[in-house]
């Protein structure tokens, strides 16, 4: 069973479009995250959610809107896609905010043309 899953794995789209990435975890964790990995492979946190509540919004543009319908799901919607949004987006989860180990999904490679 996949612990943290993301769909889709690949996303190719035009500038200006709106797209969503879905994430689900079956680990029973309370906390979920979105990270962005840029073209130089640098990883940076975007958002963290704990029990469906937003905890961190790390100066991410308003075009990015996470939504957590329940503790097992954290989706990422991106409006008006820009070339600079091209990256790999990783979802992760952990048992709690202070229970350090985070388990990552397989990543979604987004390419904006």
């Amino acid at each position, binding site marked *: 069973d996949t612990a943290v899953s993301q769909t889709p794995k690949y996303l190719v789209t035009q500038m200006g479009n709106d797209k969503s990435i879905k994430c689900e975890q079956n680990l029973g964790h309370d*906390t979920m*995250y979105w*990270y962005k990995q840029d073209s*130089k*492979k*640098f*990883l*940076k*946190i975007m958002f*963290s959610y*704990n029990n469906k509540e937003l*905890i*961190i919004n*790390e100066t991410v543009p308003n075009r990015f809107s996470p939504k957590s319908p329940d503790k097992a799901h954290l989706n990422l919607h991106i409006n008006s896609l820009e070339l600079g949004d091209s990256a*790999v987006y*990783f979802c*992760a989860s*952990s048992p709690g*905010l*202070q229970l*350090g*180990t*985070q*388990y*990552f999904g*397989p*990543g979604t*490679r987004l390419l904006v043309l």
Partner: protein
Amino acid sequence: AQTVTQSQPEMSVQEAETVTLSCTYDTSENNYYLFWYKQPPSRQMILVIRQEAYKQQNATENRFSVNFQKAAKSFSLKISDSQLGDTAMYFCAFFPYNQGGKLIFGQGTELSVKP
């Protein structure tokens, strides 16, 4: 601001040899975790090893061990008996207890294991 530095962008090692990857971090926090994650070409982020800052004993996981020097803020990863499957990008990451759960990553070290 807390930062994590991996000063070796690329390294290579012969199969069966030992290699050490360096990591230093900067923080005023006293309570935190440190991690090494591995990212093979498949892109999956895989946890290699974890160290709690309050523990003096260095963590080990089979062929992987760390040298944690809290005063020096250093956290190196030693891979013994390197295998071809160890070829990957390795990321050092710092986790402060009270900052919303964020992991702060280093720039990564690309490790190639040569036959």
